[in-house]
């Protein structure tokens, strides 16, 4: 039943991203926050959700989507992810500049800010590497190792950032999404044998 399988996978992915957003929209904290602060928070949740979609697209694991199409979407979603990070950090900056300056200069009292900033630089570097892909003239395997390494730092840094935060995200949906994002990323990296000497069984070149 390929049709049902496809439906279930797409449904699950959409639910993983949508449920935490819907749950966060019920947060009582929203009442006491300005629109720019709320936007910043939701941009962060959207970013976390996109981190689930990215490895699935990179590996071509989503049904009814050719690898070529999935990779093009991966680039598009990568840009959206960078935009969500910019909105997240920019919105927090407008809300409380000294807290964001502390975070960016690694002087924040909250350890989770540190992880967020590390994840931010990793995603910027991963995106930059993608933008400069043709110009850099790196071997495909080398490029992939570095890009994937940065993505792994982004994902683990983001989970370490999001989990201890007492914010608009509902706890259970946040924990579940973080586990799924980290798990899917790890599984895709492992299956593609990015860092192993032995090439992947299905060599995927662009």
């Amino acid at each position, binding site marked *: 039943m390929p049709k049902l399988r496809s439906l279930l996978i797409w449904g699950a992915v959409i639910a993983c991203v949508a449920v935490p957003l819907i749950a966060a929209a019920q947060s009582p*904290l929203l009442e*006491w926050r300005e629109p720019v602060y709320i936007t910043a928070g939701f941009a962060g949740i959207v970013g976390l959700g996109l981190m689930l979609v990215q490895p699935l697209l990179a590996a071509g694991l989503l049904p009814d989507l050719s690898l070529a199409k999935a990779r093009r979407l991966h680039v598009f979603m990568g840009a959206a992810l960078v935009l969500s990070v910019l909105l997240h950090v920019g919105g927090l900056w407008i809300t*409380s500049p*000294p*807290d964001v300056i*502390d975070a960016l200069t690694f002087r924040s*009292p*909250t350890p989770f800010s540190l992880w967020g900033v590390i994840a931010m630089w990793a995603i910027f570097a991963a995106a930059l590497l993608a933008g400069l892909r043709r110009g850099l003239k790196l071997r495909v395997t080398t490029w992939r190792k570095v890009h994937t390494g940065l993505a792994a730092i982004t994902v683990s840094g983001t989970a370490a950032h999001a989990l*201890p935060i007492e914010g608009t995200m509902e706890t259970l949906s946040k924990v579940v999404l973080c586990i799924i994002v980290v798990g899917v990323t790890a599984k895709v990296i492992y299956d593609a044998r990015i860092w192993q000497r032995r090439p992947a069984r299905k060599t995927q070149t662009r």
Partner: protein
Amino acid sequence: MTSLITRRTLLATGLATGAAATVTSLTVPARAAGVAPTPTMRGGSNNYLPGAPIVDRIGGGGFWMTGTVRRAGDGAPLEGQRIQIWAHTTEGHEREPHSHGATLTDAYGAFRLEMPQIVPAFGQPHGHLAYDSGDFKTVFLRPIMPSASDKTLAVHFVLEPV
């Protein structure tokens, strides 16, 4: 099934706890002669607005910020010290002037200021307090509430003479 906690271990644990408690209660007064000054906390001065007015209450109230102010060294309570308080509450963001207020310590070095309920902001339910009046070294604190539903938070200052 055999219990891992035998009467003997239970007794031993009880005795050890009792001994530890005794040691602690003996050493604390002995240390009082050298009460260490409270260090400024990271991020404590964020969104500080100097010169917050002395008020009976910040906004509508409902939450109590309490604490004490003592002198470093001898630990003597300090009367009439101005403590400035601000936080993200149900009535506004930290940066807004109406979220700020100040109060004075009483003869016992204690202070108490009613303010709106603190709500989590930037990841933690926290408040900000400052001593910045010049007679002692400036201290900025950023205490975290054990639970966001707490209706009170106690914060203690030990100030070092300039």
